[in-house]
Each structure stands twice: as structure tokens, then as C-alpha cells.
């Protein structure tokens, strides 16, 4: 159940991100849309890793080696999430850098101002 709720949340967030990305004309808002989409994906990752009644896959006093295999959540998605988050951040940084350059060129952030090449 829990993972379904989380999955739904993540996917909804992706949809919201898509909506923002497609409807807003301001580049910064579009970038926010992308970030939301990214975050939604990360939440999906977490949802997929969840195991019923699981806990963090860290062996300590709370989780002994013997019961780890049954009580820990899937560590793989967590590992993937770290990578995905870093990559998402990287992409956002590049997008922002370009947004700055675009603003410097045209003194506007409206995406409608950037349709030079077509056809």
C-alpha cells in the first residue's frame, strides 16, 4: 500500500512537472517544471525500492545481519536515486546557465522569444 501511495505521488509530480513545462512561458518556470519532473522520478525510485515493513538497509543495532535480508528495503534503488539526483542537479545547473545567457541576449525569459531557427 505504502509503495503505491508513494508511486502515485511520484507519478503525479511528474505530471505536474510536465504540465508546468508545457504551459508556462517563462524559462525559469519551465526549468522548475523539469525539476519537479525529476523529483517525481526520484520519488518513483523510492517507491519501487520499498519492501513491505522494510527499514533502511543499514546494518546496525536496529537491524541485525540475519534479519536484514527480510526486513531491509531494496538498496539498489536508493543507490540509483543518489546518482539520479546528482544527474538531475547537473542538468538543472546547465539549464540555468543557459537561461542566464538567454536573458543576457534578449533581456527576456519568455520562451516565445527564442524561436529563431525553424523549418
Amino acid at each position: 500500500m505504502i509503495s503505491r501511495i508513494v508511486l502515485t505521488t511520484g507519478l503525479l509530480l511528474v505530471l505536474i512537472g510536465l504540465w508546468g513545462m508545457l504551459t508556462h512561458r517563462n524559462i525559469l518556470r519551465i526549468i522548475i517544471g523539469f525539476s519537479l519532473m525529476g523529483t517525481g522520478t526520484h520519488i518513483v525510485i523510492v517507491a519501487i525500492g520499498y519492501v513491505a515493513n522494510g527499514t533502511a538497509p543499514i546494518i546496525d543495532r536496529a537491524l541485525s545481519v540475519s534479519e536484514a535480508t527480510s526486513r531491509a528495503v531494496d538498496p539498489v534503488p536508493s543507490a540509483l536515486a543518489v546518482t539520479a539526483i546528482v544527474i538531475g542537479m547537473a542538468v538543472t545547473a546547465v539549464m540555468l546557465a543557459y537561461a542566464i545567457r538567454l536573458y543576457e541576449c534578449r533581456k527576456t525569459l519568455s520562451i516565445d522569444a527564442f524561436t529563431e531557427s525553424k523549418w
Partner: protein
Amino acid sequence: MIRRLSIVIALVSFGLVFASLVAGYAERQSPRPLAEGYIRLVPQELGAANVVTGILLTYRAFDTLGEVAVLFMVAASVGLVLGGERPPRGVRSEVRPDAARPSSEIVQTGTQILVPLISIFAAYIIMNGHLTAGGGFQGGAVIASGVLLVLLAYPQYQPDLEFLGITESVAGALFVLAGIAGLIVADGFLDNRILPLGQFGAFFSAGAIPVLSALLGIKVGCELSVILERFRP
């Protein structure tokens, strides 16, 4: 109007696809075989209590190396994009004097209090990555937040980009070197067992994982700081 409508139709279609995913998803009652293998193997073979860190820094260390490369490239890319034909930094503060507006006393004081705290916290996160939740990336990000705070509080402050750059490069090269060491001393590229595994759960344990974490933390911290610095007007 048509545009709006087509966006709505597209998103509804995606919503349907997503709904089918949610409907088709059954919550796992036990970890998948691969995950189970990791949970068994990481403490046993790598000596790391935090399975995720074990995966990140050994089994999937190749991914991690890739991520480091990604961050490194972002720093370079942002440098290329923002460093292009724009006036050099010294000149710009005259063109846009408001860029150098001093921050308020509250922010400065808050920074003075917080930065040491943030630094300690970052070091903690980095160095305990193999034992508890945390690791190089997370710690590096925390370091960068400290740097960001300093940049906000002291707009005139110029971080030593050259130093950051060299540190970053050296840390990256050392990470690769550690990987090569794994190739020579242990079982393969990026194998963490080039140092003794030590006592399970102790601070100095899990082979080279703490060292790799530290390198990662330093590298990520430097990279993010460089990126932040590049974004300053």
C-alpha cells in the same frame, strides 16, 4: 486554445499510462533476489554497514565515477557557457553596482554561527557514509551549502577558484588511482578492498570506502562551489 487542449490530451494520456502502472504495481513483500544478494554481500565482503554506500562505492562505483565526471563536466560546461564573451568579473561590478550590495548584519552573523556547524556536519556525513546514512555526495552538497551561505553573506568574497580547481582535479585523479589500485591489489577496478576491512561497524573499516567517501566529498564540495561561484552575477 488548441494548444492547451492538445497539452491536456497529452497529459491525460500520460496519466492513463501512469494509472496503469500504479494499478499494475504490487508492493514487494520481500527484497528482490539481487537486493537480497547485496544485503548479504556488502557487510560480508566489503565490511560496510551501509549497504547503499557499499553498492555505490564498490559494486556500482563505475556509476559513481560517472556521476563525478558528470559534476565535473557541469562545472566546465557552466564555465564555458557563462564565461563566454561576457565582460571579465572585475569590470562587471562597475557595470552593475547593485550586484555588490552588502548583506545585512543578521545574515552575516547567522553565517558566522552556521558555517562551522555546517562544516562539521558535512565532515560527519562524509566520514560516516559506510556506517550510517550519508556519504560523499551528500556531504559534498552540505559543504557547498556552506559555501553558498558565505557567498550570500559576503558578496565581495572571492573563493580561490584555482585552489578549488586543483583540489577537485587531484581528488578526481586520486579516485581513479584508487580504482587502479583495486585493479592491482584487489580483485578489480574500483574494488574497495585495497585497505584492510577492519572491524565491522568501526570508524576505520570497510576498506577504502571511507577514503573514497572523503575524496568524493571533497571533490563534490569543490565542484558545487565552483558551479555556485560561476553563477554569481
